[in-house]
């Protein structure tokens, strides 16, 4: 008896990614966000989701993919997970949501190493559906907005944000 898990797949710059559907709280369109001062560029800000302050990240920018201008059809996947015993919620901006697919958990392949050139930190494994490769995201890692891990991004942004004025 095989263990199947359901994945929500979505596209990002013609690549197919997926998250475990149990980590998906809802899918909604992008609303104006409130910028967080001095935050890394991919952290777009926070918005009010029924009284909860939820941070929004742009997954393209997080993965250093070319930016896309936002429009009325821009989709936010709201993720949830248990992180250090607290329930956390975060939204991520993706190009479009594709499908819900059943995947045999035994068939999820470990991420191969690509050396230093490709950052696979946030990829938990590779799955396939209809001959497409799906990159399964490590939601816990993605949602850990711990400042220590973000340190490099923080500094880059600081240089970017204040450079013009000094």
């Amino acid at each position, binding site marked *: 008896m095989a263990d199947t898990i359901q994945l929500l797949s979505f596209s990002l710059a013609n690549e197919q990614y997926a998250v475990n559907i149990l980590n998906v709280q809802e899918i909604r369109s992008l609303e104006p966000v*409130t910028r967080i001062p001095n935050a890394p560029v991919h952290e777009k800000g926070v*918005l009010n989701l029924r009284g909860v302050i939820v941070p929004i990240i742009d997954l393209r920018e997080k993965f250093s993919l070319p930016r896309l201008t936002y429009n009325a059809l821009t989709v936010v996947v709201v993720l949830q997970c248990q992180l250090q015993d607290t329930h956390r919620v975060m939204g991520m901006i993706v190009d479009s949501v594709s499908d819900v697919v059943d995947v045999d958990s035994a068939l999820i392949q470990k991420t191969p190493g690509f050396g230093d050139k490709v950052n696979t930190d946030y990829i938990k494994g590779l799955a396939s559906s209809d001959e497409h490769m799906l990159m399964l995201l490590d939601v816990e890692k993605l949602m850990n907005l711990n400042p220590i891990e973000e340190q490099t991004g923080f500094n880059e942004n600081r240089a970017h944000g204040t450079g013009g*004025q000094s």
Partner: protein
Amino acid sequence: MAIDLAQFHQVFFEESFEGLDVMESGLLAIDCNEPVDLEDINTIFRAAHSIKGGSGTFGFHRVSEFTHGLETLLDQMRSGQRQPDQRVVDCLLGSVDCLRTMLEAMQQGDNANDADVARYQAAIDAILDQQNAPVSSAEEPAAHLPPAEAVNSAVESPSSGWRIAFSPRAQLLQRGNDPVRIFRELDELGELEVAPDFIGLPEFGEFDPEICYLSWRLELAGTVDRSALEDVFAWVEDDCDFAIQPLGAAQSCTDVSPQVSPEPSAESEAVAPATDAPPAKDTSDVDVAKVKTVKAKADKPKSAATIRVDTQKIDHLINMVGELVITQSMLGMLGENFTLDKLDALQNGLAQLERHTRELQESVMSVRMMPISFVFGRFPRLVHDLSAQLGKKIELKLIGEQTEVDKTVVELIADPLVHLVRNSLDHGIETSVERVNAGKSETGQLILEAYQRSGQIIIEVKDDGRGLNADKLRAKAIEKNLIDPQQQLTQQQIYELIFAPGFSTAEALTDISGRGVGMDVVRRNIQSLGGSIHIDSEQGQGTRIAIHLPLTLAILDGQSVAVGHETYIIPLNAIIESINVDDSKLNRVAGVGETFKLREEYLPIVRLQRVFAISGAKASKLSEGLVVVVEGPEGRCGLFVDDLLGQQQVVIKSLDANYRPVEGISGATILGDGSVALILDIPGLLRLSVREQYG
């Protein structure tokens, strides 16, 4: 037609408990050495009278009979026939407790214990009979310790459980501790069996509801750390003897006590009124009634589910709802035969609807906020009782009781505060003789203060006692291997040592100043609320302990300001004034630091757009925007913004719940239009600004 009176019982009980609280605080206000304020007596009398009337109506005749005696006594005081002395006041206080126990028992549907009632009834009658009778024997039986039982463990092999012998000293209940709370905590750790031991019970007639006569034998199944068990007892370490031993595989009772208790359940209830011991289960052991105390206590239908709300808030809510209904009917009428020329009215109506809904939302949120007096309220009695017991003269001052904090904070801060206050009374404040010798006033002072500052709620416990002895603390810490003997520590760091877990063993500090018993637990409780605790002390002058709690869910008066397209909230209490500054008043320090002169004082300018890297700010010249003068930790400074938007109450939401703490930002809030605005943390912002400019 029969009316089911039972439906009013809950209301009656709640009213009665409120009445009892009124009586208690009234009685505590009576100072026997001064002429009595008649209004005080009247208040107490009225409360007693209501309880008597209510209990008569609902057929609680025992209560009404008992209250009748009280009332007669109070009536004599009211009409000036009797001057209250300490004896009478103490007896009345005891009666109030007794009445509370009776009512609690009735609320549970149990019968109150007769012995207690009879005893106080007798005491009151005695006072009524003899104008100046000697102290009734029933009144203050000397607190005697129950024989602390030495428990021999059955088997000494490590196993999957613990056997705990828990023998509280007599004063346990008086110190505000409740054995049931301990049992409940233990039950969370594993499966708990509780067996009371009645060996210390006096005769029926000698019961004192404030004295704990029972001891317990507990068996906790499950693999639990010994330290976890010790943590549970940390609060009561001073007030009990307890021994923890691993549970043997064979549960032979080698410590069977010879005494056989005839009526275990009824007695356990009589002795520990606060515990509501349930009826005994099937008793297999001779001397031990095995009782599942924990579950019974959890069923207690008291408080937890209800919340007391200021009537003003309720009135406000009702007003808001009224407005909402009016707006709604207006909109309804508009919609019935709508023509385009009524568009203006429609838009107005919608704007109104939006405003009312928002205000309603805010009012509802504020219902969760309670004044801290709900916690502070218990301390006058605690201090009264403890100071009498310790033979010290102590004056308690409560400041800022109206500071509003979240309900959760109110519930969780009580235990740590009781602990701090107890410590202060017990070890901090000296006896009258010592105080006079030290050149201080005879009466010690204990101040409990609560206030809001820079986005935090601060609760302070201050005393003017002997303070902490840094040298001894340091020596102790070295002895306990907590610090290296070579280590250089500031005074502050040494004080912080008392929060170290190793410091909390019982005898570690009693001979120095006592603080330290369970202080690590206090700190952990406060940290679990997201707060911190700081200690400050001057030897011989006193100690000040400040608890800082975050304002999660707290409401703040804020001024919203615009910078570029962004909106920020400045806490109103930090703002001194907002002014328009002419560019000619601008000065530079070393080419970078901007200052301006305000009434002979040079204030640094912090440009929000620069510190927060905000693009599209409208104002770059000072004259185009506004300078908001705020009070920082190191003096005033001017925040330069584009414009002021408006003042409003905002509900503070945590930013780090889903994100992380951001420097210069204390939290977030949701504006009327549903968007998020960030709340500035002034001290953090200034630190950030200093780094921006010079770092």
